[in-house]
């Protein structure tokens, strides 16, 4: 299990290889990437900030909970911090399970949970230079 906040680009290739095991038949990788256009709004860049110690603890708890709900063999979650551009990866979740239904369901529900509780925030900068912290 690896849980990480990082200011560097996320290496999803390495995450997949870390989750590959001979006892599992399914690997699911999810990447959240920055959209340039959402509705009528254009995004020039995003800036992510976190309460890092609690965010890592919270991500670890979410991963542990998932391991008790699904037969997950390996799991990695990496969230990017700092300024990132459209197209870049802000979050990556990778995990392996014996069968694919569990892998899809675990990965999706982990992502849903992360968006609800982990103390990480993004600030959107529009092409006009206006920046807003997003508090949904």
């Amino acid at each position: 299990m690896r849980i990480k906040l990082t200011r560097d680009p996320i290496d999803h290739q390495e995450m997949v290889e870390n989750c590959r095991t001979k006892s599992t038949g399914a690997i699911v990788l999810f990447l959240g990437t920055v959209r340039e256009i959402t509705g009528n709004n254009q995004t020039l860049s995003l800036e992510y900030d976190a309460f890092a110690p609690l965010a890592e603890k919270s991500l670890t708890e979410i991963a542990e909970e998932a391991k008790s709900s699904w037969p997950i063999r390996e799991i990695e979650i990496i969230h990017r911090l700092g300024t990132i551009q459209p197209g870049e990866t802000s979050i990556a979740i990778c995990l392996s399970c014996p069968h694919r239904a569990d892998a899809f369901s675990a990965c999706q529900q982990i992502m849903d949970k992360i968006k609800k509780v982990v103390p990480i925030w993004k600030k959107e900068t529009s092409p006009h230079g206006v920046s807003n912290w997003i508090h949904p």
Partner: protein
Amino acid sequence: MIKIFVLFFAGARDIVGHSRLEIEIPKASSIGQLREILLARFPRLENLASRAAFAVNESFALPDKVLFENDEVAFLPPVSGG
């Protein structure tokens, strides 16, 4: 009175103008009471305060949690990670 520290993030930090504040509060105050103290001092926090979560010493905490000298409280506005 006891001295505690409050951490502010994202939009809350912009409103307060600090990422960490030392604050004096009455002994045995709860997080809920701290929220009222913060609102009195920073009225523009209202929208975020009603929806904020809190952590004490890097663990999530509920509004009825009582605070002690030197506790570090994090004011966590609605999150938008992912």
